Structure formats: structure tokens, C-alpha cells
């Protein structure tokens, strides 16, 4: 008895087929993004393929290698509450906790959020810092793309026509620290700028991944920054140099939240602060 144009397939393959065959069809996950655009008559889909009926897309499952697969339909609230995302993976939990507000975190999903790929959203830099991979499906099958390559441009991802995100793969959590520092005008707003950092510590030393959000068409990262921080994690000069490298790699714009110039100014300061907090967390253990 449902509405014409509304589909709720039971499997990923059915969903992929519907998307490929139906003209003007769009994926509906949590609705926080797509329905907001429909209300603004920015998006006028002729068909909706809801992913709510596909069991494998929900929930966070531990993988054989000790890593995790977060189904595309997993709501921010569930990701924010999952204690298994610890150590280096805590960066993702910290990010999920700071998305919008509790009510929207009950609706929004990780697949919907990263599919829309607003670079000021909280998951893109966090997934890069967590060294995650994004699982994509199309009519032909599934493939995985590293998060650092998944986010391509403003609101543009590696997903081609008819493709959609089915999940996120996280490497096994390594002992260490994971932090997401978000600067926004008010609580719940998109970031002016954000820093996502994971720091794995083992006998060999510290291995750091860092990414900056809100300051370019996609999450900003720099091999030099990762290298500098990993080599001398305790050193303030290294943190400053890493901050400068990331500011140089950034490509911020002026928008209603802040100016490009301010974003370049604040990136090194946020990086230095986040590194200091991560180091304190490591030393505390």
C-alpha cells in the first residue's frame, strides 16, 4: 500500500538495480540531508530507494581481522555510543558525538552523511584519520575505496552514477589516542575548521594520521604532516611544522561561517592543541 515511486528493497543488489534502472531515483538513508533538500525543492527525486529494509546495512560488526564494518544505515547515535571504537578508532566516536544534536544523531546515518560529502561535515576528516575504507556497491558488485580517495570535491565522492555507500571498514583499533577537535559557531553547526587525529603507540614508537575538515573541497591531509608528527610526537616544533604543512595544503573559501584567511590562521593552532591533547592522553595511559 506504499506510495508510488517509493521502494524499500530487501537486499543491496535489489537496491543497486533499482537505482540503476529507475530514472531520477535517489537513495534514502536517514533523511537528515536528502529530505532537507527536498523540502527546499533543491532535490526533486522521481523515485526513492529506501535502504531501511536491508539488514546488512545496519549495525557495527567486528571483522575477522579485529577491525570493524559500520553499515551505511548506522545512525550517528549508535556510532557515538560504541565503546569498541577505542584507541586510534576513538577519533570516529569523538566525531560522531559532535554531529548536530541528539535528535539529528538519531536520524542521520554514516552512509547518508559521507555520501553527501559536505567537507565541513564531521565524518570525512575522522575517517581519513582512522585510515578507513568506504564500501561502495553498484549493479556489477562491490568495491572498496580508501577514505582519503573517496572524498573528491565539494559534495562529490568516488561514487559513480547508480552507486551508493554500503558501509565503512575500519582497521583494527591500535592502542593510542583518537581525537576530533571541532571549531563551530554554535553547538550543532557545521565546522568552521576541525582536526581529526589518531596516534597509535607501540614499541616502535608513535604512528600518527591527521586530517583537517572544513577547509577545502575535501578533507585536507599531508604526508609530511603525518611523518613529522610520527617522528617527533612530543615535539612542539614538529607539531607547528605539521600545522603549517596542513594550512598550506588547505584550500579554504569564504563562507557565512568564517573567512578563508581565518581558517588558514587557525589550522596550525588547532593542530598544535589537538596534538598536545593527544600526547597528554597517551602519557596518561
Amino acid at each position, binding site marked *: 500500500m506504499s506510495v508510488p515511486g517509493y521502494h524499500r528493497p530487501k537486499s543491496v543488489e535489489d537496491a543497486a538495480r533499482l537505482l540503476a534502472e529507475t530514472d531520477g531515483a*535517489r537513495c534514502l538513508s536517514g533523511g537528515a*540531508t*536528502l529530505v532537507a*533538500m527536498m523540502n*527546499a*525543492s*533543491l*532535490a*526533486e*527525486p522521481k523515485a526513492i530507494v529506501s535502504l531501511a529494509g536491508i539488514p546488512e546495512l545496519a549495525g557495527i560488526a567486528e571483522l575477522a581481522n579485529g577491525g570493524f564494518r559500520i553499515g551505511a544505515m548506522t545512525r550517528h547515535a549508535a556510532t557515538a555510543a560504541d565503546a569498541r571504537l577505542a584507541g586510534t578508532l576513538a577519533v570516529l566516536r569523538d566525531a560522531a558525538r559532535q554531529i548536530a544534536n541528539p535528535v539529528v544523531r538519531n536520524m542521520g546515518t554514516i552512509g547518508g552523511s559521507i555520501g*553527501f*560529502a*559536505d567537507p565541513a561535515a564531521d565524518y570525512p576528516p575522522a575517517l581519513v584519520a582512522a585510515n578507513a575504507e568506504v564500501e561502495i556497491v553498484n549493479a556489477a558488485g562491490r568495491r572498496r575505496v580508501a577514505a582519503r580517495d573517496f572524498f573528491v*570535491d*565539494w*559534495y*562529490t565522492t568516488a561514487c559513480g552514477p547508480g552507486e551508493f555507500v554500503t558501509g565503512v571498514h575500519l582497521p583494527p583499533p591500535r592502542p593510542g589516542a583518537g581525537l576530533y577537535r571541532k571549531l563551530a559557531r554554535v553547538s550543532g553547526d557545521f565546522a568552521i575548521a576541525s582536526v581529526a587525529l589518531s596516534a597509535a603507540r607501540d614499541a616502535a614508537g608513535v604512528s600518527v594520521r591527521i586530517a583537517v575538515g572544513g577547509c577545502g*573541497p575535501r578533507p585536507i591531509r599531508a604526508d609530511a604532516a603525518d611523518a613529522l608528527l610520527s617522528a617527533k610526537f612530543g615535539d612542539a616544533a614538529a607539531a607547528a611544522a605539521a600545522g603549517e604543512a596542513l594550512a598550506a595544503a588547505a584550500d579554504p*573559501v569564504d*563562507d*557565512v561561517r568564517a573567512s578563508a584567511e581565518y581558517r588558514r590562521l587557525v589550522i596550525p593552532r588547532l593542530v598544535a592543541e589537538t596534538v598536545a591533547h593527544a600526547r597528554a592522553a597517551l602519557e596518561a595511559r
Partner: protein
Amino acid sequence: MRIEGSFVVAAPRERVFAEITNPALMAGCIPGCEAIEVIDPKTYRARILIEVGPIKARFNLVVEVKEEAPPERVVSVTRGEEGTRASVISSNNELVLVPAEGGGTEVKYVSEVSVTGRLGKFGLGMMKKKAEALGAKFAENFRGKIEAAAAS
């Protein structure tokens, strides 16, 4: 909404000017341009599809060349709408060609774009960011076409 940018093309100014005022070539360079039709030497009709995330906006535009000072300057006005007039767009565009060292040409473009309707209200932030990306893509396509032609 002010969109500006510049890029260098390895070709002399006269050549670049000729191509930039050639609708057929421009059609291939403007990202999302689905059709271009010459109405008269000074007026073109173009249909451009812009996709930003789930937004699909197909613009029916009329481009009027206001001033032409070969080989250095073109001023044009674009007017049009998309969907059932869901958005109305108008922009004043200026293109300046400056000789660059090594015989190339620097193409500087500035557009003062006004969008009202659905895209103006909600999509302005996104459109501005997408416009920057479109500008870069145009430059890439245009340079590719000119330099390929020059090389052959």
C-alpha cells in the same frame, strides 16, 4: 556571488581570443554544457546541467556579448532560469586576456552572479563552492583543447 579566477594557456592571445569567442569550442569546455546554439554573432543560447550532490539544475541561458575588444577583452551578460523558473540566474561576465611570458596568454575571468529562487535561498553556499570547482574544470578543458590543437 563573485566568481573569479585565472589560468595560463600556452598559445598566443589572438588564438585564445578566437577560440574563446567560438561557441562550438566553448560548448566542449564548459562543464555540464549540453547544448549551445548561436542566435546571432552577439547572442547564444546554452543549456547547462549543474549537479551538486543530489541537486540537479538544468539552466536555459541566453548569453549576450556586450563588448568585444579583440584580442584582450570580452564582456557578456548571461540571463536564464532553471526548472519551472525554480531559480533565476543573471551574471555579468568579463574575460581579459593578458600576454604571459613565454608566448602564452593569461586568461582572467570575473563573473558577478546573482541567483534567486530555490538555489539562491538554499544552495548559495554550495553553488559558490561548486562554481569555484567548475571554473577550474573549465580552465583545464579549455587549456587541453587549445594546447592539443597547437601541438598537432
